[in-house]
């Protein structure tokens, strides 16, 4: 390793002066050191997605067949749903995002990995907290705060593990050899800095040391809104701004647009969750600020859309056809725009009076989680996993199946939940319609949701097949870092 360092040290003077060119040797060295921790978290992320979406399939079945698996305590809806949604969030979205942050920060900083053991210990800590926390939820120990259901010790361990990983990224930034701070890193570091802040604060005030009841609602709403905007949307934007130039060679269209999009996202993200409490027992200004922020989030969305639209126009068509990453990223961005439109609709008081407390709200969350975050994250996985393992994806048809089944699954799920939610909402507002009738109106849409979860899982099995084939190649080649 030291030899490699010295052999590449000749170019360090070039590295420090822009334009930066990293020696390819350094690049392979970065990958070589990252492969362990990154793949560890990637594995956590995929396993959690598999288990989480299987449980959500069960949950969606229980919504239409209440007698299904009846009488088994730990499989009751009230326990399964939090386990599933927390697995998708803290098992899939956050570790997956962290794996990306490690990989992208390593590459964009051009720094090799210091204190690797801290990172590996922290990922193991996170994984075990996740595992035992999920078990505790199944047994029935839940704080019953939405998205913060884990018992206090679990959330504390997750918090500590995240802080360790965050510190590690700061170490790597300290070592960076590039004077450039690329736009993807703005979003990555924002996400990295914001998560411990919001997760720590929300847990401190809602589960560790409970604040008075009237303040709990706004804090939970603030947490959800910030998590959605500054993790589940910030990371896809980082991926998009990295992958498009990287794969197609097209430059970022306008830096002013990136800047406007970034600053306005930061400014409005934290407030946006409060509109979920429209009409609730909170001071009027809170929900009004939430409404305004949600609608003003149109600006960062528009800035991103303009930039990406112009960039995609410059990409030549064959690249777009051949690159699974670009296709996944493009789909993720389309879902991002759709999600923004639906959340603006959800924030308009008149529409909120109909749509709140129906499947629409939950569908919106799945759209961000599976559509915006999920698609771009999978796109990034198609890019960085082969480069880390130095192996190929062994089947392009599996990639096709994965892509289309996921797209169809998400579109079906979101249409079923938003349209079903609309019908539910209209029915709830009519006092002449009984609750039994409302449930029977929603039933066909909930059956469609069951089908959608099935399709999503089927698509994911094709991805699992690709990963297993890759693992087989690893065993054949005796590569030490197993996936």
């Amino acid at each position, binding site marked *: 390793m030291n030899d490699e360092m010295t052999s590449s040290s000749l170019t360090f003077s070039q590295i420090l002066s822009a334009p930066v060119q990293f020696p*390819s040797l350094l690049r*392979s060295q970065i990958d070589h050191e990252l492969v362990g921790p990154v793949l560890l978290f990637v594995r956590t992320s995929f396993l959690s997605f598999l288990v989480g979406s299987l449980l959500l399939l069960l949950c969606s079945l229980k919504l239409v067949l209440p007698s299904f698996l009846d009488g088994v305590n730990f499989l009751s809806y009230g326990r399964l749903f939090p386990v599933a949604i927390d697995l998708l969030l803290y098992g899939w979205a956050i570790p997956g995002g962290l794996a990306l942050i490690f990989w992208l920060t390593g590459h964009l900083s051009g720094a090799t990995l210091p204190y690797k053991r801290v990172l590996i210990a922290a990922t193991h800590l996170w994984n075990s907290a996740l595992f035992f926390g999920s078990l505790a939820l199944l047994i029935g120990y839940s704080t019953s705060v939405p998205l913060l259901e884990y018992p206090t010790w679990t959330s504390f361990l997750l918090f500590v593990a995240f802080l360790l990983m965050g510190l590690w990224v700061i170490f790597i930034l300290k070592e960076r050899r590039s004077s450039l701070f690329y736009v993807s890193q703005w979003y990555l570091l924002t996400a990295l800095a914001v998560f411990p802040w919001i997760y720590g604060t929300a847990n401190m005030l809602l589960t560790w040391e409970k604040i008075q009841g009237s303040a709990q609602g706004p804090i939970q709403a603030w947490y959800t809104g910030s998590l959605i905007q500054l993790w589940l949307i910030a990371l896809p934007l980082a991926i998009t701004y990295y992958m498009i130039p990287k*794969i197609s060679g097209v430059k970022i269209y306008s830096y002013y647009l990136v800047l406007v999009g970034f600053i306005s996202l930061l400014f409005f993200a934290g407030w946006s969750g409060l509109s979920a409490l429209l009409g609730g*027992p909170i001071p009027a*200004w809170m929900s009004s600020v939430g409404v305004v922020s949600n609608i003003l989030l149109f600006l960062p969305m528009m800035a991103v859309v303009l930039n990406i639209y112009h960039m995609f126009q410059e990409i030549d068509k064959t690249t777009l056809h051949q690159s699974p990453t670009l296709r996944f990223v493009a789909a993720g961005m389309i879902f991002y725009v759709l999600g923004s439109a639906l959340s603006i609709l959800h924030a308009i008081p008149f529409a909120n009076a109909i749509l709140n407390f129906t499947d629409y709200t939950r569908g919106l969350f799945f759209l961000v989680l599976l559509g915006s975050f999920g698609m771009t994250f999978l796109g990034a996985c198609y890019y960085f996993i082969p480069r880390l393992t130095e192996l190929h994806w*062994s089947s392009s048809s599996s990639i096709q199946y994965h892509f289309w089944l996921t797209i169809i699954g998400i579109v079906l799920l979101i249409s079923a939940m938003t349209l079903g939610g609309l019908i539910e909402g209209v029915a709830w507002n009519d006092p002449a319609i009984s609750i039994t009738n409302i449930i029977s109106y929603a039933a066909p849409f909930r059956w469609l949701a069951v089908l959608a979860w099935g399709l999503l899982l089927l698509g994911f099995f094709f991805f699992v097949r690709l990963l297993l084939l890759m693992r087989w190649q690893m065993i054949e080649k005796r590569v030490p870092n197993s996936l």
Partner: protein
Amino acid sequence: MEQNPNNHDSAPFQRDHEPSSDHSYPPDQLDPSRDLLELEAGNNDVQSHEKNNLLRPLPLWLVTLSMILFFWAGLYLAYYSGGFRSNVYNADLVAWSGGGASAAAAPPDLRTIGKKVYTQICIICHQETGLGVPGQYPPLVGSEWVLSQGWHGDNHLVKNVLYGMQGPVTVKGMPYNNAMAPWNQLTDEQIAGVLTYIRSEWGNSAPALTPEFVAKIRASTPVRSEAWTMPELQAIPREVCTPAAGGAPAAK
């Protein structure tokens, strides 16, 4: 892979069942000018900004649109923030004072308060239409009790709400025999509000009652545990709420 050296992302593809001829994926085969992003590095070079995208201006329509959105946001917050006070839970009940946080809240509209009380309490018997239920609950529309006609005064109406009614009564010439619950736990403002509301809704047009008048009647009526009967009320002399007797109505 060789034929298309520009396409790095598709490089790790293999067709199904096609034996992989090139297992190695040497990262240094990547085009270095495209790696670690540093096609963007040129952007840092101010001298070359003319040929790159660093200083590309924002589209004018986006700037205009954001101005319009910000203006709308200001208006919206002005109307629906309740002056950013922590004790305002429903911005519809509070007129925007236009001042800062120190400005006093404008007094809420009596009819708005009254409508809320009516829909929470009175609507159960007297119905949304104010017509009551024939033979069971007397109507409020055109009722001499509500409009203070004949021997009925505004004081009777207030006393009625404060301590309730029982026994046979006559309303618009029809006999009723039912009980009305006492509502003396309501505030003066709420009682004045709901009475003002029923006196000006459904075509009724009697003057508003003020909270001060309600307070005066409440103070002058001894506390009782029994509801009123019609003869008891009839024995009490008629009083009318006048601006002189109770101060000007606070309603806008």
